[in-house]
């Protein structure tokens, strides 16, 4: 491994620690936000938004997705699409059933 690589990893480590800080802060923020007096739709939206940001940080930096190869990105896009389809399933049932 060259020195260049070494420096590279050191660089990475700094990023990891920053991300860690951000995650910790966001965790506290979600908890605090849950005590806010907002309507339940807003609360859901807020909590999921924060969770999504946190998840993106983990996926993007810890799992190196932001620099990952195309093959993997494609597979994940496909998966994400089907994930959405799966989440679409309760919604369609509840908006479009003749008796529920």
């Amino acid at each position, binding site marked *: 491994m060259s020195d260049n690589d070494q420096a590279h990893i050191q660089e990475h480590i700094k990023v990891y620690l920053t991300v860690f800080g951000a995650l910790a802060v966001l965790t506290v923020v979600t908890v605090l936000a849950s005590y806010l007096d907002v309507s339940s739709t807003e609360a859901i939206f807020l909590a999921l938004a924060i969770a999504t940001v946190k998840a993106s940080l983990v996926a993007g930096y810890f799992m190196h997705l932001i620099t990952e190869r195309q093959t993997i990105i494609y597979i994940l896009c496909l998966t994400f699409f089907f994930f959405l*389809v799966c989440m679409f*399933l309760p919604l*369609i049932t509840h908006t479009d059933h003749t008796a529920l």
Partner: protein
Amino acid sequence: MSSDQHHHEESFIQKYIFSVDHKTIGLQYGITSLLFLLFGFGLMMVMRWQLAYPETPVPIVGWLLGETGILLPEIYNSLGAMHGTIMIFLGVVPLAVGAFGNYMVPLQIGAPDMAFPRLNAASYWSYFIGGVIMLSSFFMPEGAARSGWTSYPPLSIFESGQTIWLIGMVFLITSSLLGSMNIIVTIVQLRAPGLSWWRLPLFVWTQFVTSFLLVLAFPPLEAAAILQLMDRVAHTSFFLPSGLVYAGATVDVAGSGSPLLWQHLFWFLAHPEVYVLILPAMGIVGEVLANNTRKPLWGYSSMVYASVFLGFMSFIVWAHHMFLTGMGTAMSAFFQTTTMIISIPSVVILTSFFISLWGGRIRFNTPMLFALSFLPMFGIGGLTGLPLGIGASDIHLHDTYYVIGHFHYVVAPGTIFALFAGIYYWFPKITGRKMSEALGKLHFWPSLIFMNGIFMPMFIQGLAGVSRRMYDGGEIYAHAQDVLQWNEFMSISAFLLGAAQVPFIINILISIFNGEKADRNPWQATTIEWSAPSPPVPHLNFEGDVEVYRGPYEYSVPDAETDFLPQTEK
């Protein structure tokens, strides 16, 4: 590569039982799944006896069913559920993906093995355990599952035997996940030099799409199975609404669950699953067709696109199994439309197969006969899917024998025939010997006739409105009277179909030891597996390095010396 010392030292167990060689695992898969197919068929023959001659003692195996030898309604339901489960999850999928996928994919892409050999073995053993669990349920005090292969709650929560079924399913799902991950990685990573995506045989493409279906569609069913297990074991009520009264007593659970949740999660898998059954079959048919027409497959690239599109669409049509659950206009319109859309790629694939025949020099050997008959049989099955996919006509046809007829045409004379074609076609590669043509034809013609004898009358019964899963075949219903006489006809056809498998079994047993010796390329085929010795080198497949120079189906190239140009020859 130092493999030579390697396999000399292997013990019997390493070599045949806990082998990590994809060929051995493929064979293990193949043998186990064929036995399961035979067993699943056996269950169905018992049921068909009851349908033809309600409440008369079952011959031969009657003693297993209790003193009277009569099949009881609850056992009928068990056998039905297990027939469906075994045929699909323990028979066809393991044969198509586990056996053919495992054995042929690495060979067809010029790889020495699967990407993860040990995971591959784990996949087989997980399947094996799942199979043993499923079989053992027949001997449990509770008996085998009896709520249909679809296991709709609340029935499945109340009926006995379901717990074992769920546990078995978890193993089978795990097995499929491991297997298909492996196939995906193998195809992406281990293609021989020169083998670009557009040079892949159709079979590899279909395996690739199939594996994606398994990887992405099976987990939601696994989730659902876990929830159902919780409902049964921990008395939760994921699938139980409030206010149930079962067998005279109110059901004491928290309630406010929904039976529809299961149906959604189940069909989210089970619809893609049906394409898991058909795509590898189409792949095999493509291989056999190209080889025996001695010309390239017509519209190869559109077939590839169609398969990919088919796989993609199969995730968004699932609710066509649920039209009658009280669906509103928007949802039904959506799913009717997607269902009609998904029929188009099938039409594209089938049409390309037909057109491939035109201008060929067709050899009518046994694999070709099976592959050819796949086409109209799948055609009938696929076409009869259309009235089911239209909500309005499905009102009359839902859950009747029409549905049974529809899907058996695609899975039995469709997929099973394609798998037979694959067995006859690749047998020389696997064993170094050819199967007997005479016995093969003796297997083919009766099978074709009796398959139709069983399933064609089902459309008539279905149009008459006769429900499926009827213990007496509809005998007590007035509206079934006009079509009741078919029951006996269908059952006799089924028994004769059973008899027609005897030449096949004999053929396999005889040919392994005494079949005509085959060299490495007995069919003068082009794809890569035929450049390996028959059988291929253990743990290595090929004797030397493989390099690929052309597309998969270069038959009858103008000005070439032979009528086929193997992919691996310069």
